[in-house]
């Protein structure tokens, strides 16, 4: 019981194959504990299974073997809709609804949850302020009238609107320019500290991982090859860690 309380999310020997188990293993024998609070970064190359791991948490995928527990219950036991409404989800390009205004996008999950209108309106305002978008100026705009960075902020506001304990982020800052990216990363750090959510963050950028993570999990071809605090990560002796470290170009000084 204490384990279930400590670990908000838990993977137990999870494997996953596409097409209902007919294809090759994308995730192979992953066991992982995600404690409450903090930012766990899933790092890996394209195709290493990072996104799949994320989708196993909110029931977009179900394990072919093993089980994933969220708040002590397996994702199969959860009603998928209930589970997902308690987990914020932010993806690259934000996936905002183009036919909704910014306010309507942010109001989505509270609306699905049947909150009263005044409460939703207040929450939308609060969320937009939280991500640094002046509600008076942006609430009634459509996503196409925003910059990439602004869309990404709306994506975060939408994910946080119903105050979920868990936030899943799939390369949320992958599609914006480097300057905006650095800005969003700084704001994200401040936000993460303030909100005390449990965040699982997918990236292929080691620099981003070192900056944002309280723990880094490195994936290689569907397996976990390193699981360390950011300050220890570069000392892990594994070829894939070295490969990532080489991409940093500052390895000498970091070791």
């Amino acid at each position: 019981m204490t384990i279930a309380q400590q670990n908000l999310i838990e993977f137990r020997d999870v494997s996953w194959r596409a097409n209902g188990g007919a294809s090759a293993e994308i995730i192979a024998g992953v066991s992982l504990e995600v404690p409450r609070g903090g930012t766990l970064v899933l790092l890996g190359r394209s195709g290493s299974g990072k996104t799949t791991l994320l989708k196993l948490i909110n029931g977009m995928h179900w394990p072919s073997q093993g089980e994933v527990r969220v708040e002590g219950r397996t994702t199969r036991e959860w009603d998928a809709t209930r589970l997902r409404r308690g987990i914020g989800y932010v993806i690259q390009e934000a996936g905002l609804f183009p036919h909704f205004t910014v306010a309507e996008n942010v109001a989505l999950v509270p609306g699905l949850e049947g909150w009263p209108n005044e409460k939703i309106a207040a929450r939308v305002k609060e969320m937009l302020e939280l991500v640094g978008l002046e509600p008076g100026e942006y609430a009634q705009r459509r996503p196409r009238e925003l910059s990439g960075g602004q869309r990404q902020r709306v994506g975060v506001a939408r994910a946080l609107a119903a105050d979920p304990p868990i936030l899943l982020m799939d390369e949320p800052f992958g599609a914006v320019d480097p300057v905006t990216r650095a800005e969003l990363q700084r704001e994200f750090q401040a936000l993460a500290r303030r909100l005390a959510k449990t965040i699982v963050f997918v990236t292929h950028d080691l620099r981003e991982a070192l900056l944002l993570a309280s723990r880094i999990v490195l994936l290689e071809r569907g397996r976990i090859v390193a699981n360390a605090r950011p300050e220890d990560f570069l000392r892990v002796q594994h070829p894939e860690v070295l490969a990532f470290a080489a991409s940093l170009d500052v390895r000498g000084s970091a070791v």
Partner: protein
Amino acid sequence: MTGFWSFLAAHQSEILSATLEHVELVCIAMAAAILIGVPLGMLIVRRAKLRAIALGIAGIFQTVPSLALFGFLIPIPFIGGIGKRTAIVALTLYALLPILRNTYVGLTEIDPAVLESAEAMGMTQTQILFRVRFPLGLAVILAGVRTATIITIGVATIAAAIGAGGLGTFIFRGVALVNDSLLLAGAIPAALLAVLADFLLGRLERRLRVT
């Protein structure tokens, strides 16, 4: 040409009533085709087997030559016989494919990131269908309605062959009597109707397009 103008002047009330009759045939058939095609298109979004059957059958109707389709329907009880009802059934069957196909395409060709986040937010498939797929696919659905309307306005001229009236009456008479004025009195209003429908529905479609 002077013959044609004097013919128009002499028969304007008949031409007008034939045009109205034509519009009536088209409107009823289109309403029926939309009421069948759009819900059916929504139904087949996530049902592959039903999709193959529905699109297959609608495709068959479309390949039957229109005059033959009218002919086939005449002996069928309840919907058959000579007159408007048979014509409307045939026109509906004819209009079905473009509407059904565009509804399916409009509802399925949605930005995958939008569908993924809708699902991840905890929307049910029904909510995604009505609140995401439908509004985003509406312009494509309407493009199907526009295509179907233009086809139906043309095919409806053949309905006169089974006694359903409309502008085809003039055309068939014109062909039988080798009379150009009669032929044009049917063909020109039908063409104008098609152009008008194309223009109006095209405008509506552009207005509904979400970028």
